[in-house]
C-alpha cells in the first residue's frame, strides 16, 4: 500500500466511518422498494464528500449509490471497502467507469448475502443463544447479557476486518482482477455457494402447508399435503419462491404488487381454509 500512499486521500478513519454508519443503519431504513440502497448511499457520504468537492460530482456519486442494493450486513462490508477504493481511484482520474463500480456491487451482493445469512444469522446467532441458554433457564440475567455482548462483538470484529480488507483489495488488485477475468471466476464460485446456501436456508425458513382434505368417503380423507410430501417434501415453498422469482423476472421489481398479492392470497386462503 505504501507506494500508492501519495495519492491516497482516504484514511483508515474514513473507512471506519463508512463501516459504522452501515452497521448502525443497515436494517433501519430497509424498504421493500430498494432495500438497503438508502443506507449504502448514506454510509458512503464521509468518503464521497472527501473525494468529490463540487456539488455536481458529489450529487452524481450520491445518486450512483442510491441504486438497488441488498446484502448481509456483516459479510457485506467487504463490498463497501471495495467501493470506497474504486471511488477513490475514479476521483483520482483513473479510468473507472460507473458501470464497473455498480457491476462489482451488484455482482457481489447476492452471493455474499447467501453466505452471510447462513453463517452470521442461521449459524452463529442460534449457536450463541444456545450456548448461554442454560444460564437463562436457571434464572441468570447472563443468559441474555452474554449473547448480546458476544454476538455484537464477534460480528463487529468480522465486519470491521472485512471492510478494511475490501478497501485493500480494491486498491491493490481489483482492477487487475477485473481485467484478467478472475473477478468473474470469484463471483461465479461465490454465486454457487450463495445459491446453495439460500436453497438450504429456504428449506427451513419458508413455511407453507395446506390443511386441505378431500372427503370422498367417510373416514378416509385424502390429505393433500401428504400427497404433495410423497411427491417431494417442500413443494409449496419451492413453488412460492419460483413463482415470485418468475414474476420478478418478467415484470421487474414491482414489490408492491407482490406484497399485496401475498396479503390477498393469505386472507383468501385463510378464509377458504386452503392454506
Amino acid at each position: 500500500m505504501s507506494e500508492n500512499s501519495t495519492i491516497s486521500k482516504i484514511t483508515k478513519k474514513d473507512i471506519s466511518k463508512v463501516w459504522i454508519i452501515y452497521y448502525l443503519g443497515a436494517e433501519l431504513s430497509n424498504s421493500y422498494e430498494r432495500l438497503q440502497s438508502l443506507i449504502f448511499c448514506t454510509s458512503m457520504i464521509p468518503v464521497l464528500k472527501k473525494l468529490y468537492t463540487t456539488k455536481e460530482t458529489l450529487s452524481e456519486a450520491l445518486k450512483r449509490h442510491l441504486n438497488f442494493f441488498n446484502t448481509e450486513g456483516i459479510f457485506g462490508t467487504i463490498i463497501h471497502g471495495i467501493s470506497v477504493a474504486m471511488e477513490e481511484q475514479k476521483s483520482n482520474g483513473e479510468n473507472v467507469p460507473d458501470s464497473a463500480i455498480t457491476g462489482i456491487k451488484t455482482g457481489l451482493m447476492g452471493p455474499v448475502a447467501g453466505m452471510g445469512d447462513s453463517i452470521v444469522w442461521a449459524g452463529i446467532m442460534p449457536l450463541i443463544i444456545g450456548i448461554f441458554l442454560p444460564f437463562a433457564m436457571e434464572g441468570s440475567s447472563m443468559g441474555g447479557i452474554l449473547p448480546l455482548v458476544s454476538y455484537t462483538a464477534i460480528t463487529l470484529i468480522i465486519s470491521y476486518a472485512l471492510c478494511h480488507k475490501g478497501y485493500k483489495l480494491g486498491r491493490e488488485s481489483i482492477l487487475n482482477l477485473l481485467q484478467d477475468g478472475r473477478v468473474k471466476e470469484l463471483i461465479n464460485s461465490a454465486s454457487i455457494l450463495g445459491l446453495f446456501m439460500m436453497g438450504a436456508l429456504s428449506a427451513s425458513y419458508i413455511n407453507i402447508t395446506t390443511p386441505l382434505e378431500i372427503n370422498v368417503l367417510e373416514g378416509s380423507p385424502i390429505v393433500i399435503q401428504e400427497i404433495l410430501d410423497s411427491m417431494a417434501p417442500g413443494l409449496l415453498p419451492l413453488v412460492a419462491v419460483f413463482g415470485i422469482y418468475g414474476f420478478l423476472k418478467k415484470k421487474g421489481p414491482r414489490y408492491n404488487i407482490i406484497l399485496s398479492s401475498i396479503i390477498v392470497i393469505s386472507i383468501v386462503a385463510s378464509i377458504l381454509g386452503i392454506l
Partner: protein
Amino acid sequence: MGSFMIAVCMGLYYWFARLRFGYTFSGMLLQPVCVAVVVGWLFGDMTQAMIIGAGVQLVYLGVTSTPGGNVPSDPALAACIAIPIALQTGMEPNLAVALAVPFGILGVFVDQIRRTTNAFWIHMADKYAEEANTKGIYRCAFLYPAILGFIIRFPIVFISTYYGETVVSKILDILPQWLTHSFEIMGGILPALGFAITIMVIGKKKLIPFFIMGFFAVKFLNISVMAAAIFGTCIALLYKGTSLSGGAEA
C-alpha cells in the same frame, strides 16, 4: 417504579429494538432472552423473568429476519407481551407463550407497514441526492424511520404492559381467527420473497440447480446448515476449478 413508567419503558424498549439500530446488536435485542433481562430488571424479579424468557426463546430460536429482511414472526413482540403477564399473574410460561404467539404473528403485519412506508424516505433521499444535501440523506436513513417506527411500535406494548392480561385477552377475542391465521400464512410465505430477490440478484440462471440441490439436501438428507455450508464451499471451489480454469492443475 410505577407501573406507568414500566409500561413506558417496555414500549420504548420494543420500539428501540425493532428500530434495528445496530445491525446484529438489535438483532439480538429482539430475542426473548434479552427482553427478559429488561423485564426482570423493571419488575424486580430477574430469576423468574429469565426462566420465562428462556421458555419463549425456545419457540423462536434463531428467528429474526430472514434473507431479504422479511420477518416471519416477531419474537420481540411476543416476548414483550408474554413475559410481563406471566410474571404478574404467575401464569404458566407455556400459557403465556400461547397468549403471545398471536402477537408475534401480528408483528409480521406491523413490519410490513414499516418496510412499505420506508419507501417514502428513499424517494425523499433521491431528491436530497440531486441537491447533494447529505444532511437530508442522513435524516432519511435514521431520523424519519425512527419517528415513524415509534408511532407504530410503542402503543401496543405500552398498552399491553399497562393494562395487562385482561386487555390482551380482549384484543385476542376481537381479532377473528381467520385474520390471525392469515397473518400466520403471510409469515410463512413472506420469506419466499427474500429468497426470490436473492436468486434474482445473483442472476445466474444456469446455476439455479444449486439452489434446488441445497433445498432438497436439507429436505431429503436432513443435513444441517453448517453441513450445507461446508459441502457447498467444497463444491463451489471445485466447480470453479473445473469450469473456468480448464482443469484441476494449480
